[in-house]
């Protein structure tokens, strides 16, 4: 794909949690469509390795930091504008669970982590990028939510609650900036065996009372129509569409990529 003819030629994107899995697939797809991209992650070495693998030369860069921290999210946006001169697409993608538990056993620490990581991170990134995008009357905000933003699973109260909240935030923001050339959408993937899910899945399986990581994955698959996990590339393809000029009239949309899991 030529950098001058891709669907995102001339666009600049930043992606929280972009060194691996869904965010990484978004970065690859955006670069393939001609965009310049800044990826973010906590681990500097992993970020440098991701940049080398992306092999996009000076069209890609890395900004280190924890997306659960306001300074990281706002710093990423400032860095992207300084590095590439503009910001067209802000992908608020980072998120997950660490040590979840049923509500009656949920610690304040885990609850606060999930609120910061999944919800506040999206709010901070949205507010900061809108402050930049509104005067320019142009922009795309793409939030990686989850099927759990519409459903509920036992043992995942923080994740479910924050993903529901994110979906509400997306809808509200979409109406605020709908006439300003800015779209705000969420993608709702079903289960994907990302690195984060592999790392935290065994603990989640215990909290959810399903026994093993394999049983956890199988449970999610069985609730879908395709009876398999989704793939990061499937999410990235939707992100490209939403980021492109072609999607100027799609906003406030909760776009499922869940193999037929959600009832609505």
């Amino acid at each position, binding site marked *: 794909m030529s950098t001058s003819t891709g669907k995102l030629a001339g666009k600049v994107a930043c992606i929280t949690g972009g060194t691996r899995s869904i965010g990484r697939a978004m970065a690859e797809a955006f670069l393939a469509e001609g965009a310049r991209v800044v990826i973010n992650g906590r681990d500097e070495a992993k970020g440098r390795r991701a940049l080398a693998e992306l092999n996009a030369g000076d069209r890609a860069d890395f900004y280190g930091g924890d997306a659960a921290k306001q300074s990281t999210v706002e710093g990423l946006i400032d860095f992207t504008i300084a590095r590439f001169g503009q910001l067209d697409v802000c992908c608020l993608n980072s998120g997950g669970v660490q040590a979840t538990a049923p509500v009656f056993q949920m610690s304040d620490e885990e609850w606060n982590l999930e609120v910061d990581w999944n919800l506040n991170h999206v709010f901070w990134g949205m507010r900061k990028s809108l402050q930049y995008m509104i005067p320019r009357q142009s922009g795309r905000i793409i939030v990686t939510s989850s099927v759990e933003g519409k459903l509920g699973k036992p043992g995942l109260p923080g994740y479910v609650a924050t993903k529901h909240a994110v979906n509400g935030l997306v809808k509200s923001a979409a109406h605020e900036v709908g006439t300003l050339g800015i779209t705000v959408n969420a993608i709702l993937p079903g289960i994907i065996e990302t690195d984060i899910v592999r790392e935290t899945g065994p603990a989640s399986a215990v909290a959810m009372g399903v026994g093993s990581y394999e049983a956890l994955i199988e449970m999610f698959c069985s609730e879908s129509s395709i009876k398999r996990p989704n793939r990061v590339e499937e999410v990235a*393809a939707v992100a490209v569409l939403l980021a492109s000029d072609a999607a100027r*009239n799609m906003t*406030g949309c909760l*776009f499922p*990529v869940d193999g037929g899991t959600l009832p609505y």
Partner: protein
Amino acid sequence: MGTGGLGVKMGALDGRVACVTGGTRGIGLAIATAFLDEGAKVVINGRDAAKAQRTLAELGRGDQVHFIAGDVKKKDDCEAIVDGTVAHFGRIDILVANAGGAADFAPIAQLPDEPMQDALLWNFWHSFWVMRRAFNYMIPQQWGRIINISSVEGKVGKPGMSTYVAAKHAVNGLTKSAAKEVGTLGITVNALCPGVIETDIVKEGGAGAAAAMGLTYDQLLAQFAADSAIKRINEVEDVANVAVLLASDIGAGITGSLISIDGGTAPY
């Protein structure tokens, strides 16, 4: 569309055969055009052969596109459109049940049976008939894409439009059930739910719908725009772009979805 290493055009739908009901104008024509641009062979359907010949001439795609006449309110025609696609191009990979609309709008208290039956035939029965027929081909080949063109009115309701609203809700229900039936067979079934678009069909039927709501046609469009976040109505290309994604290989993980293309109108 990209360009391959040998300068050969590489489309997301190369080698695929698509059938689009109501494809001579409006949303269907935009979808057919986008599919052709991505390398698919496309059958377009419509009632009016003369109109279709003009459309084919304007498309200028030669053998890549073929017209099959038929009225989607008739079962035999629906089945002949699908069978005819296979007869002409050898297979059917993508079915877009796009034709639809409603006429003779009225509040339910004053609504005769006929407009309700007509709306169900046009939107719901048509979608069912072509889907069922297409499954006969898609299930054995373990690959298929069904895209039903529904509406924001498949998720919400408007007074005076019960015929259209009920028919599109039924299409959405059919979509979800079908997706679960064929989910492991390489076949996806999705519905696209556009906001109002000023297609020929809407221009023809809009005044009647507006009157049933106590509005003028312009007021009706203004109300749809006001309900959205973007405060303007949608365009046919909005729908075509999403249809290409769903129809392509990378769309394999999206099924049973009711995708809003409505500028932020539907609440879910």
